């Protein structure tokens, strides 16, 4: 059985768990770093990245999250989670987990009144995917090994680099689970590789 964790310090945890369960895998809310050992992949949910970061530091999660990345387990960051994954943040000298070779700008579409819904074409996922952008970040620059999966108005809003998947929007807020299913496949592949 594939088990996928959702970092449960703050944010849209329940929605991601529901989406994972709809994809037929076991979802685990991760509140303590030890629990990371029990899962094959991890979702970093939407929420407030500054609040999550404070709790990550407070509970000494940072090294455990970096180790999780180092052993090759897949990680999927949505919105605030994308910010946590990025190696570089526009306007900040230090990243958070800093494992995915992208540069991300926070709140780059404006304030809440500018938040929007749009249909996106996402490579290998869907020709038309309902995406909900809430005070969303976007990927300003992507490294050469990063595959760009989707753009909105010329801005990169979804990308993959090997074991890392990130998007600006909130796939967990709708009933379309195809992007989650794409991540579940990444986790299955990674797990199969480690078994052989």
């Amino acid at each position: 059985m594939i088990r996928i964790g959702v970092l449960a310090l703050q944010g849209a945890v329940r929605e991601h768990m529901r989406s994972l369960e709809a994809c037929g895998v076991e979802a685990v809310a991760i509140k303590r770093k030890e629990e990371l050992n029990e899962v094959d992949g991890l979702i970093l949910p939407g929420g407030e990245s500054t609040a999550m970061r404070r709790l990550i530091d407070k509970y000494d999660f940072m090294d455990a999250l970096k180790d999780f990345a180092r052993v090759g387990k897949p990680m999927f960051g949505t919105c605030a989670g994308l910010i946590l994954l990025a190696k570089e943040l526009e306007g900040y000298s230090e990243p958070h987990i800093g494992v995915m070779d992208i540069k991300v700008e926070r709140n780059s579409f404006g304030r809440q009144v500018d938040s929007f819904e749009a249909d996106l074409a996402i490579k290998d996922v869907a020709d038309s995917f309902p995406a909900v952008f809430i005070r969303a970040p976007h990927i300003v620059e992507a490294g050469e090994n990063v595959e760009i999966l989707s753009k909105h108005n010329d801005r990169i809003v979804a990308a993959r680099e090997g074991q890392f998947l990130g998007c600006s929007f909130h796939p967990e807020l709708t009933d379309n689970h195809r992007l989650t299913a794409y991540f579940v496949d990444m986790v299955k592949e990674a797990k199969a590789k480690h078994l052989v």
Partner: protein
Amino acid sequence: MITGTDLVKRGMAEMQKGGVIMDVVNAEQAKIAEEAGAVAVMALERVPSDIRAAGGVARMADPRIIEAVMGAVTIPVMAKGRIGHIVEARILEAMGVDYIDESEVLTPADEEFHLNKRDYTVPFVCGCRDLGEAARRIGEGASMLRTKGEPGTGNIVEAVRHIRKVNAQVRKVVAMNEDELMTEAKLLGAPYEILLEIKRLGHLPVVNFAAGGVATPADAALMMQLGADGVFVGSGIFKSENPAKFARAIVEATTHFQDYKLIAELSKDLGTPMKGIEISSLAPEARMQDRGW
């Protein structure tokens, strides 16, 4: 591409779940709140306990205060407008405030009608004491709820009453047969369609935070345990002796609301909490929760 949809407005509140929203009256307090791990701040001219003490008519804050707070932090900024005050709400929306609280903490501008919140691109949070009130606000377009509690008292008893009431009534609706819902809607004074939605989902269609009397980390954890999705803290933080420490303690207690050893640790040496007011000592006209319907 469309803005101001239910998904976008309700989704914004979903992202705040498990977090603490703190009342602040200036940029400096806003920074302390952000640094402590608040998921949003509520920009105000005065915290509720000071509004209570000052008396008179309480209105939307000076836009300059709200602007200063918006300029100081990267987390969302909320602000309060008076119940039914269409223009205060439009001003806050025009300023780019991320969420408006149509709040009974301020003196109502309209004693009969709440705002038609569906008209706005900006999302709204509203207070509720029971499911009827919650469903009416959702019907008007509120994208987030909070308990009314009794603001500025530092007394959790009313917020506990309100969260228990709403959740008990939600459980009842979910367990009912669909053919019983119209009568329940009539009895609650709730829109029928909202009750149908609650029954279908098994829970409220928007998040419901605790507010109105949270004064300690244990209070915050209590409200989470009773089913709140997150916590608003008004007067408690910046009326305490060490606001930064107090704010961090509330945030942690909200995240780990069932870790009692941890809450014991972070409740140590917080100094004197706000004094608090026994509810029965309030004159009827001083009860903020009875504003709105």
